[in-house]
């Protein structure tokens, strides 16, 4: 399986994300924001955390219009997998690959800590490696993570079982404690917590590794 990890000016989790994919057995290709195509045979695109373009205008808004974004749109339209973490989640909502928006944290403070994350569905390649309702300890590090969506959109996410993760204790004011959501075809996942930072026992835990390992298995089955 081949993963492509995108780097924007201001990305800072791109290397960690590449390592997480590699440890789960993916062959990783690094892609620059000015590239106009993904390498042939790319199975999953990773959009990393960071502060792309300095969070100017709105978090993720400028990255969502970069040259590589069109290639990511086309990849998703073909049914390709996309994983957006933190700023990557913001980019995917700005690209309209995922519904809703990430607004300023309710407490206005940058939230940087390890939190309890709950698996809200196992019906996706990303989450099928976990148990339903399983608690994971995963770091968060964001200023704009308050997931916001209109009532109709929220009802639809619930009805279609597209809420991937919820917070054990809501750290940012997200509606319905939502920490991660899936696209309609369940092949695009955006999440604010950082599974790639919980991928090595030396660095405080490995609860995030299951996402990448599960994705590898889930994609092989699909």
């Amino acid at each position, binding site marked *: 399986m081949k993963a492509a990890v995108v780097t924007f000016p201001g990305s800072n989790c791109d290397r960690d994300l590449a390592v997480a994919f590699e440890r789960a057995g993916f062959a990783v290709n690094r892609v620059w924001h000015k590239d106009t195509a993904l390498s042939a045979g790319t199975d999953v695109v990773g959009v990393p955390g960071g502060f792309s373009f300095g969070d100017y*205008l*709105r978090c993720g*808004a*400028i990255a969502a*219009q970069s040259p590589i974004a069109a290639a990511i749109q086309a990849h998703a339209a073909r049914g390709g997998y996309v994983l957006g973490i933190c700023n990557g989640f913001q980019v995917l*909502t*700005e690209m309209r690959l995922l519904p*809703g*928006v990430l*607004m*300023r*944290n*309710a407490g*206005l403070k940058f939230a940087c800590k390890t939190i309890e994350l709950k698996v809200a569905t196992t019906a996706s390649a990303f989450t099928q490696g976990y148990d339903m309702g399983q608690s994971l300890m995963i770091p968060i590090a964001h200023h704009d993570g*308050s997931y*916001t969506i209109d009532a109709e959109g929220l009802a639809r996410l619930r009805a279609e079982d597209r809420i991937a993760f919820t917070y054990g204790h809501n750290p940012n*004011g997200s509606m319905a404690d939502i920490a991660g959501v899936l696209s309609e075809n369940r092949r695009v996942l955006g999440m604010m917590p950082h599974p790639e930072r919980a991928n090595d026992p030396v660095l405080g835990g490995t609860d995030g590794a299951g996402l990448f390992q599960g994705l590898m298995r889930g994609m092989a089955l699909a």
Partner: protein
Amino acid sequence: MKARITVMLKAGVLDVQGEAVRHALGALGFPGVNGVRQGKVIELDLAETDKAAAEAAAKAMCEKLLANTVIESYRIEIL
């Protein structure tokens, strides 16, 4: 031709920054501030000289990049 674009959160979208400003104004002794909504103003210097065309271009820019219409509304003034 210049265009001034005002981007605001839509009515009903909680503006946590505006709320913080409202609290700060109260703490500074300014009574009676019932609400604060914070937005942004973007000024464009356009080569276009036709007003209608400039407005149409600014609208396209708002839809594509300058506003996130999921939560934000925008107002265009051609100056």
